[in-house]
């Protein structure tokens, strides 16, 4: 059952006040945070003040929208006016944004309540939240495991019931991979469907904001609230936004579902493979036709990404120079030394690595061999998807090759960490929407994620398939024991 719809029902029937609901989430946060560390900032006072306003509106007999009075968590790379936005970096530890991001502005206007800002890998660069400057977020299903990343805080907060739903951002899998690791639903929308204004930029041609939620219905409600054209984001698309909940239908008659052959071979954890095979049988039983197809350049997505994303990052992160905002190192005798020391002390190891890779790939003499070649391979990857969508309405593959790995397991070898995003990255390169939802558990009791990939602006089809699968399976009803 949709958490947002249930809370809305309780509010309009006056079974619980917005203050009671918000307080219950704040109590849950207080109880589980010592174990999980999903949040970098909990905005309890502000949330209760917002809840009191909602209760006044209800008492005055006002009609409220679905998100009014619903407690949400926001990834801490989305600027919130007056509430510090750290990007989990020492560089922005005390940064209080002078403006509000478009997506959080929209949620505020819809009456939603922000309970806090969630943990992430520094500047959204990572796959486990272990690159956070303020400590990692544990997986609610097993606190010795990572929550995934970079939106690990948002995924863990949703899985542990610390919020009704959350926002994350996804550049190479940062919504879908933690959603898979924590057993929740996560959607990376079509590039340009959701405004990036106020999202701290990592790789601008790939970044998108999207929902993490306990059910497909909740994700559909939240996407409807944040999507839409924004004059403040020149890459935002001028398209009308449907009511995504209208797309949620229980049968899949006539739906063609393509299985990407390149994703089901070696390197998959056996339980991930068998969960995918079982999911295909379920989808077929719901009326879908399963088509085997090939995206021959799929595996080149990862090396392409690790040129394009660091290149864009090296330009985007040039703004952190200690002049106008953020951290400044002490004791520099001139401007150049101030830049060098500020950036050396303010950024963590992974951020520095990516800035240096990007700087190298864009530097004189290397541009054609790295950046330009990667952009050309990006074209080939897009072509593979275009051919696949001539044969299928939706593509499926595992969200990640394994379930949540142990904390510390991959931190010594950056490349092994990168490999956990093998399945999600090509989707960002092609600008397509991708959704992860729970499709089983491994023998350790850790959730497994199924990734559905849609064509450009195919969010309604994704929600349709995801909803039908969710209703036919028990996975979303299981809760972690904390």
């Amino acid at each position, binding site marked *: 059952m949709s958490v947002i719809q249930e809370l809305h029902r309780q509010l309009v029937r006056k079974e619980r006040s917005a203050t009671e609901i918000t307080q219950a989430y704040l109590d849950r946060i207080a109880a589980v945070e010592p174990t999980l560390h999903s949040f970098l900032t909990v905005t309890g006072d502000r949330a209760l003040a917002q809840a009191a306003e909602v209760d006044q509106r209800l008492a005055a007999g006002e009609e409220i929208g679905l998100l009014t009075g619903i407690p949400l968590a926001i990834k801490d790379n989305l600027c919130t006016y007056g509430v510090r936005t750290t990007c989990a970096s020492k560089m922005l530890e005390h940064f209080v944004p002078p403006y509000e991001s478009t997506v959080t502005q929209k949620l505020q206007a819809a009456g939603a309540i922000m309970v806090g800002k969630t943990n992430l890998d520094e500047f959204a660069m990572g796959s486990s939240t272990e690159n956070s400057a303020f400590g990692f977020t544990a997986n609610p299903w097993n606190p010795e495991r990572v929550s995934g990343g970079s939106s690990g805080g948002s995924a863990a907060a949703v899985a542990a019931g610390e919020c009704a739903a959350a926002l994350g951002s996804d550049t190479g899998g940062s919504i879908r991979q933690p959603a898979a690791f924590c057993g929740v639903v996560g959607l990376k929308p079509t590039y340009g469907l959701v405004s990036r204004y106020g999202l701290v930029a990592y790789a601008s041609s790939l970044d998108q904001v999207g929902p993490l939620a306990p059910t497909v219905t909740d994700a559909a409600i939240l996407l409807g609230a944040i999507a839409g054209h924004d004059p403040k984001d020149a890459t935002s698309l001028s398209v009308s936004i449907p009511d995504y909940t209208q797309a949620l239908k229980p049968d899949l008659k006539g739906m063609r579902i393509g299985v990407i052959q390149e994703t089901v071979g070696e390197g998959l954890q056996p339980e991930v493979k068998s969960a995918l095979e079982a999911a295909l049988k379920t989808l077929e039983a719901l009326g879908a036709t399963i088509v085997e197809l090939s995206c021959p350049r799929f595996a080149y997505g990862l*090396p392409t990404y690790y040129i394009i994303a660091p290149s864009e990052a090296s330009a985007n992160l040039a703004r952190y120079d200690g002049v*106008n905002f953020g951290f400044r190192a002490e004791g520099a005798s001139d401007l150049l030394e101030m830049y060098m020391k500020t950036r050396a002390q303010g950024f963590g190891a992974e951020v520095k690595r990516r800035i240096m890779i990007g700087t190298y790939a864009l530097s004189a003499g290397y541009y054609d061999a790295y950046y330009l070649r990667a952009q050309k391979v990006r074209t080939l990857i897009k072509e593979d998807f275009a051919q696949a969508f001539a044969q299928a309405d939706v593509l499926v593959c595992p969200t990640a090759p394994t379930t949540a790995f142990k904390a510390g397991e991959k931190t010594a070898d950056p490349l092994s960490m990168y490999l956990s995003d093998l399945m999600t990255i090509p989707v960002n390169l092609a600008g397509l929407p991708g959704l992860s939802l729970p499709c089983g558990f491994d023998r350790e009791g850790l959730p497994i994620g199924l990734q559905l990939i849609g064509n450009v602006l195919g969010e309604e089809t994704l929600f349709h398939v995801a909803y039908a699968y969710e209703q036919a399976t028990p996975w979303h009803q299981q809760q972690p024991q904390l």
Partner: protein
Amino acid sequence: MATKVITAEDVRKVAHLARLAVDESEIEALTQQLDSILDYVNQLSELDVTDIPPTTRAIEVSNVTRPDVLEPWPNREDLLAIAPDREDDFFRVPKIM
């Protein structure tokens, strides 16, 4: 191990271009990490990209314009208040020359 893609000297140069002070004791480990990443991404040279146009944006939208209307920033003090160092209405920086 195969031929090095990147040398310690390259790493020092790139760090300077990126305005990152790197301690000499970090250079060896950094060189090795960057080298393994660059060695990995070099698998893209297996593909023939002759005559393939580059993709610069995921979804093609071009020539996006808007009316050039002046919008004064509503809270100027908020911008100055977050400066690491400020004097009156100015951002202070160390000696430039």
